[in-house]
């Protein structure tokens, strides 16, 4: 399994123009990065555009990269800011953007499983932006609370508050699913 140290070593090679090292980083981080962007943007194709842009920036800026933080946090930082830019542009240009939600579901698993996933994803997508970001980073992408707080530019206490509110809201909205499952 690759470690954060390996990430930094790979970035050293990427800085020197090593395409194979870049592809190794892509293979390592793309799934989770795409998942986070999809949760943030509630639109799978826009999320892929963000991921692409994040990697282009990573490649172009690699020569000046300094390993002050985990590469994962750095990469999520780029993608997250790109998502926020898009969400703000969407708010400005299309107040009804929420109506255009595209299902983040992909056809895998049985029908029940797909329906359940689709329902949970829709409820996660319906959370306010910052609660959604906090939940995505900590629960799905497994960033530490310190990394996530840093990325969202809030204190750890504020992050905990965002997470609590997100989970509470989801519990309420998914109460019938929880009851059926339990």
């Amino acid at each position: 399994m690759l470690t954060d140290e390996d990430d930094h070593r790979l970035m050293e090679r990427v800085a020197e123009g090593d395409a194979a090292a870049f592809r190794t980083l892509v293979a390592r981080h793309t799934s989770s990065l795409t998942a986070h962007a999809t949760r943030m943007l509630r639109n799978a194709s826009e999320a892929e555009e963000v991921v692409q842009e994040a990697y282009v920036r990573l490649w172009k800026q690699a020569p000046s990269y300094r390993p002050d933080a985990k590469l994962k946090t750095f990469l999520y930082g780029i993608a997250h800011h790109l998502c926020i830019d898009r969400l703000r542009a969407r708010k400005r240009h299309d107040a009804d953007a929420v109506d255009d939600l595209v299902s983040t579901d992909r056809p895998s698993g049985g029908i029940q499983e797909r329906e359940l996933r689709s329902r949970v994803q829709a409820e996660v997508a319906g959370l306010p932006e910052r609660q959604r970001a906090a939940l995505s980073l900590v629960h799905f992408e497994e960033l530490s609370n310190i990394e996530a707080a840093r990325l969202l530019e809030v204190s750890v206490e504020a992050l905990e508050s965002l997470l609590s509110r997100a989970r509470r809201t989801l519990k309420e909205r998914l109460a019938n699913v929880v009851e059926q499952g339990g």
Partner: protein
Amino acid sequence: MADTKQPELSLDRFSALVEAYGADFDRFPPSERAQARALALRSRDAQRLLEAARAFDGLLASARDNLPTVALESVLDRIPERYTQERRGVRLLPFRSRPQAALAAAAAVLLGLLSGQLAGDGGSEPFSNVDTVEQADIASLTFADDLFDDLTPEEGGTE
């Protein structure tokens, strides 16, 4: 002998942690993990909180997917060949620190000035035969502060 025992975690704090992070202790702040585990071992109330959170964590985990499409993978694969010309400050030498890079840049400038004088072309500008983009690239060697320049900073605070 000094007492090195950590203070006990209150059930209220335990509840707040579970509400925020769910039942997985690995998500808890590292400084509170051990106390949380200890409390979970001895308190029925803590165990009940964990049990409820675990069920909800399972539900949340069911929403985990979003594999990248083959199209995205293919686009990402081509980034190095498509964008190599546009890289900022292509690293010409493996400088690992800013002082090293600054020293090398200063030496390069000095060398350039000296060679200009020795050539004695009387009137032509130093670097006049150097492409502007190349100059910009050399100037940005290892100076990483602009990494997030073109990213919009997010507002602070909470919702």
